[in-house]
């Protein structure tokens, strides 16, 4: 999924870096505001980033028989929101390039655009849309992670097709070629990541309610809390956590 070092022509590498820059700057500003308001958040955000880094190192079984690793962008965006996830994802990509020889520095902008920007925003958008429509939490989490993973690969296919248009059919042919190659492994992997994210979220609701509440994923519904969309938070009916243990909780976002 990571575009390797030197794979993109210099102009493309520079262009994708320029395209990613506004989102990264927006994320950095959000992070700055958060840290200024709550200095102790530095450690929490660092822990969140480390979790993202470790999550992307987990091997998940693929339908094709091989193994791959989750992007972690869907879960990250749901837990930490897309602007913060953009910064954490970019730092994670930098660490992967320097510590694991995975990805690259000249391709950091392109990889950040697909994995740290489009993936989190698309996944989070779908998650929010489904939650607003009253879709159950775990279904929303599944589709959020699924779309985040798949959109990452779609953007990577576009990036590769733009860099290497097909000699016969141009950009569209190259898009079909790269997209077709990715589809064989990535659609099953996106399903796998969605399932894994649901399992992880279920465990987190059981074991880390305090952290999820602090992150704003869960709110205490008994106090009439409002969710991030501005709608009145409901009680256990809206959250799987509440359904599981009988406590009054609402899913904030």
């Amino acid at each position, binding site marked *: 999924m990571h575009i390797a070092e*030197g794979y993109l022509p210099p102009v493309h590498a520079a262009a994708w870096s320029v395209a990613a820059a506004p989102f990264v700057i927006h994320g950095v500003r959000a992070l700055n505001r958060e840290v200024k308001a709550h200095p102790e958040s*530095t450690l*929490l955000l660092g822990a969140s*980033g480390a979790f993202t880094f470790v999550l992307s190192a987990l091997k998940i*079984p693929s339908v094709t028989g091989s193994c791959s690793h989750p992007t972690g962008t869907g879960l990250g965006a749901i837990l930490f929101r897309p602007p913060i996830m953009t910064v954490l994802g970019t*730092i994670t990509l930098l660490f992967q390039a320097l510590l694991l*020889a995975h990805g690259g520095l000249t391709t950091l902008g392109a990889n950040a655009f697909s994995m740290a920007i489009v993936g989190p925003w698309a996944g989070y958008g779908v998650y929010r849309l489904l939650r607003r429509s009253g879709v159950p939490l775990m279904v929303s989490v599944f589709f959020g992670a699924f779309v985040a993973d798949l959109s990452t690969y779609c953007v990577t296919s576009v990036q590769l097709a733009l860099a290497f248009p097909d000699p016969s059919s141009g950009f569209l042919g190259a898009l079909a070629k790269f997209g077709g190659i990715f589809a064989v492994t990535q659609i099953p992997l996106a399903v796998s990541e969605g399932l894994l994210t649901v399992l992880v979220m279920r465990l*987190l609701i059981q074991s880390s309610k305090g952290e999820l509440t602090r992150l704003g994923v869960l709110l205490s519904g008994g106090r009439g809390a409002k969710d991030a969309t501005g709608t009145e938070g409901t009680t256990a009916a809206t959250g799987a956590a509440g359904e599981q243990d009988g406590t009054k909780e609402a899913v904030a976002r």
Partner: protein
Amino acid sequence: MLPIDAAAHSSRWRRRHPCEKAVLGLGLTLCAVSLPAWPGAPLVAAATLAVLLGPAGVAPRGLWRAFRIPLGFCVTGAVPLLFQVGGAGGFVSLAPDGPVHAGQLLLRTSAASLGVLLFAFTTPVSDVLPRLVRAGVPAPVVDVALVMYRIGFLLLDTVARVRQAQAARLGLAGRAATWRSLAGLAATSFVRAFDRAARLQSGLAGRGYDGTLRVLVPRAEISRPFLAATGALLAGLVALTLVLERFLS
């Protein structure tokens, strides 16, 4: 610790200023990407290998282990260029210049990856991050990256141990068990990460934490002879590539 970072901490060039190594490693990478793949990339790759195995003193075995990862990506990434979609040859056929383009891409990515590895094998991330503040990166971002770097290794150790324990309890014996174990592993990482952050926060609060993480950075002076040699090497590579390209064409 990850092998590349462990090698960087014990590197012969550890005490050199990261700026010097960045100019050399990233300069070679930029040369690999910008110069014509033939003959530029082989020349850059040869020069980088000579520096890595010579003055930088990187162990060949460790270098190969790290290099084979990007090499695998380079090879699989070059394969699609061998084919074309549509045209007279059918829906999918061999591209006329496919082998040439794939070969050039393979050379370019291999040489560029070696340049980054030169920087990574000689410069620990912990030496680079604190200096980024001077380069204009906002301090909170650097602080978050520092915490990520330090907690990340501990989490990776935890993940390895938990996975070992899961395997010993037949947690990876079947597909369903593997999924359960993986979910448990990810959830455990989350819990451990936040637990460690909370304990770090308590410890730092007791020491007057004001939101800034101050760390000691080993002092190092930028060596002008090193930078001059780097400039000469890069200029020589550019000149040699352009001369050879004319000669070969």
